[in-house]
């Protein structure tokens, strides 16, 4: 069979044996090549999908805390003399009431043992400064509450909130063994066990000392070698100090029975909890320990049968919430007055320096106003330009140049449009700085080429037979376009417009140039009010040092992504729904 195929054909046309080994091998190679290509495609899709999934999962994980807030529910004594001394219930008077005192009185009442000024300030810092405003709002809505007692959720500060979101320190609790005798002297507490109840904790501390010694040794090894003659006095002193420290740490670690002071800068804090009391251990021996009463017990205690030791993994000086802060919060948590609630505030309030009070309302409204201006400017201008260029303009050199430059404009970096906006709208026309009006105009410049290109494509996709049909029954050129061609091109135009708008919604750089990057607390009411937009708000928040703003940043990103998905989804839906086939 192969022989016949190799034999030269008698006639002019060559015969070819498609069953020969060579031909079959070629077919096989073709299938392999196709299979490989499919595999590459599949791998690329999977790879991209994995990236998108990881990105989204990360943003969701970081952003979810932003949608919840923690509050402490307390009974507030709405003392009429503090809120409305005149008793006339006038709005102005009600507005000026001392709500902060009401909240703080109730708050401090939870921890009567806190008397020192500095400690009291720390305690008060755990309540948000917005709590008094919340109460003011409630009273203004319903003045009849004055004089009554009201169970009211008081907003906690960002540090307290972060603690409950698990972002302050890792905590682990172990039950203590054996009963303890307790001697209380003011806030100083001595705990004495019958056996050696603190032996394991002490061993733990000593192990920590050994680690410190290793660290000091490593530092010692990194120091430059001593020079002959010993000229560098500072270096020698440092070396001597480190050597002494290593020796001291090793001695203490080796002395199993010796008591140790807790170094709050380097060691995890250990808190003894019993009967509602929180005792911060400061000096630990195998059998006894000295501590400080952070939260007083429910009743006077002299002996503890059941107690636990809670370890705060992060050393106190490395976190914002102190041992006392955490003790107060955990104490309230144990009393069951802490509630976790959906943070509507995130959607209803403007920007704030206090993370727990900051919301995206201002940015959302700013974005909406900006996009409104963009749409109003862009859609008629873009569609009009597209209709003129596609259907009416003479085809000559000038329109060719125009077309090329419209395509070029679509590729201009957005920051350039920002500079143009700064020079034109702010400096030349003198429009207000930071205003959605200017932002909208700048974004309109950015989106216009996209809309013109998309609209022209949509217009030219309408079959000419439709226009001819209209012309054939005596419609004018303009009537044919506006009655028939434009409506048929509308889904395409809308798709292009929505995608352009989504692009504008996510745009940051040009808006920085025209001052929409300012810290603005007020929610803009008009297009000339100063405002900011969602992506710029994200940019602003991502720059702030407070940890709570990280969650806010991710939360705002989620909201922005949701809007982008909705807009692009609408574009796809429009295309599907109104797509026509001829």
């Amino acid at each position: 069979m192969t022989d016949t195929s190799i034999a030269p054909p008698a006639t002019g046309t060559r015969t070819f044996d498609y069953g020969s080994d060579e031909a079959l091998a070629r077919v096989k190679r073709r299938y392999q090549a196709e299979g490989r290509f499919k595999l590459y495609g599949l791998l690329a899709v999977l790879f991209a999908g994995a990236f998108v999934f990881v990105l989204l999962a990360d943003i969701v994980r970081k952003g979810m805390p932003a949608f919840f807030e923690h509050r402490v529910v307390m009974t507030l004594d709405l003392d009429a003399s503090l809120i409305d001394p005149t008793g006339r219930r006038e709005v102005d008077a009600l507005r000026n009431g001392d709500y902060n005192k009401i909240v703080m009185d109730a708050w401090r009442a939870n921890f009567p043992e806190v008397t020192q000024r500095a400690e009291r300030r720390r305690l008060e810092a755990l309540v948000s400064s917005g709590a008094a405003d919340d109460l003011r709002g409630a009273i203004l809505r319903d003045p009849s509450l004055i004089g009554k007692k009201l169970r009211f959720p008081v907003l906690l500060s960002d540090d307290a909130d972060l603690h409950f979101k698990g972002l302050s320190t890792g905590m682990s609790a172990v039950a203590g063994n054996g009963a303890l005798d307790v001697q209380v002297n003011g806030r100083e507490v001595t705990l004495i066990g019958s056996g050696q109840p603190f032996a394991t904790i002490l061993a733990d501390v000593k192990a920590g000392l050994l680690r410190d010694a290793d660290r000091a040794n490593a530092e010692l090894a990194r120091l430059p070698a001593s020079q002959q003659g010993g000229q560098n006095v500072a270096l020698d002193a440092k070396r001597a100090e480190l050597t002494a420290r290593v020796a001291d740490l090793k001695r203490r670690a080796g002395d199993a029975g010796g008591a140790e002071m807790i170094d709050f800068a380097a060691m995890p804090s250990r808190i003894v909890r019993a009967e509602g009391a929180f005792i911060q251990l400061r000096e630990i021996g195998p059998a006894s320990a000295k501590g400080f009463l952070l939260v007083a017990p429910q009743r006077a205690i002299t002996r503890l049968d059941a107690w636990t030791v809670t370890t705060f993994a992060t050393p106190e000086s490395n976190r914002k919430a102190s041992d006392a802060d955490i003790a107060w919060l955990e104490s309230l948590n144990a009393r069951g007055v802490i509630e976790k609630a959906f943070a509507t505030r995130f959607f209803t309030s403007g920007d704030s320096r206090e993370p727990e009070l900051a919301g995206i309302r201002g940015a959302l409204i700013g974005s909406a106003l900006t996009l409104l201006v963009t749409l109003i400017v862009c859609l008629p201008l873009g569609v009009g330009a597209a209709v003129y260029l596609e259907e009416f303009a003479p085809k000559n050199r000038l329109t060719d140049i125009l077309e090329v430059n419209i395509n070029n404009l679509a590729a201009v970096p957005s920051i350039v449009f920002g500079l143009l906006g700064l020079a034109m709208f702010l400096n030349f026309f003198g429009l207000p700085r930071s205003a959605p009006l200017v932002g909208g105009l700048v974004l309109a410049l950015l989106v216009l080429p996209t809309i013109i290109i998309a609209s022209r494509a949509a217009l030219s996709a309408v079959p000419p037979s439709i226009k001819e049909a209209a012309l054939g029954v005596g419609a004018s050129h303009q009537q044919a376009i506006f009655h028939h061609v434009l409506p048929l091109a509308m889904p395409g135009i809308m798709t292009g417009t929505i995608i352009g708008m989504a692009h504008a919604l996510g745009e940051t750089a040009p808006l920085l140039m025209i001052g929409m990057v300012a810290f603005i607390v007020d929610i803009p009411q008009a297009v000339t009010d100063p405002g900011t937009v969602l992506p710029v708000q994200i940019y602003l928040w991502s720059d702030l040092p407070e940890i709570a703003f990280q969650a806010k940043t991710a939360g705002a990103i989620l909201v922005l992504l949701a809007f982008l998905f909705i807009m692009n989804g609408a574009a796809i839906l429009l295309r599907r729904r109104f797509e026509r086939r001829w």
Partner: protein
Amino acid sequence: MSLASPMVQEPASVSEPDVAAKVAARSVNVYYGEKHALKDVSVDIPARAVTAFIGPSGCGKSTFLRCINRMNDTIPICRVTGDITIDAKDIYDPRLDVVLLRARVGMVFQKPNPFPKSIYENVAYGPRLHGMARNKTELDEIVVGSLKRASLFEEVKDRLNDQGTGLSGGQQQRLCIARAIAVSPEVILMDEPCSALDPIATAKIEELIDELRTNFTIVIVTHSMQQAARVSQRTAFFHLGSLVEEGSTEQIFTNPKDKRTQDYITGRFG
């Protein structure tokens, strides 16, 4: 059967002796840029009769057809010289409104092109545009009348609000004819109206053309010589941009004067 009926009427056609020409073309030349597409065409098209333009592809018959309602104006590079008159009035007179001309000279295209709107709206668009109906009742009358004259009404009377594009090809083409006659044109130009249709739909359209002849002057471009023979009273043969021969259909098909006409109709080329 339907194929036969126009043939039967053929001998009875009295339009043979030239009545006053409805459309008269004198020395018409058309250029697409550099290309000389139509060379010195002069022809008379009689009123209330069907005139067929035949010829091989690219011979200029469609180009000439599109000159009669100035549809070539929409092509930027197209240039027309010479005179075309309708009722002795020059249609290339700059004072003449091209939109009104197109209302008087309706057109049916090669591919059925109903608007993607309802059947009713398709027919009502033209009359509404020209303010031909004072109220809804009058508009309804025009629409129903046009559909009836296009022999489509019986098939679509229950679904006038359905999409025109949802009809079958033949129905769509009859809808396009109804749309064209709704504006009461004097001349109807048909550019290969049956080329996209099956034989049965074609027969229906041909029958319709024969009926419309009593009221309208019809010019039809066709590739099918049988069709030209069946529906037309006069035939013009185009070749390479020139009008080769024009005369009564009977004469062209039975006794062509030009060798090229004879070759074409006997199927020797084209």
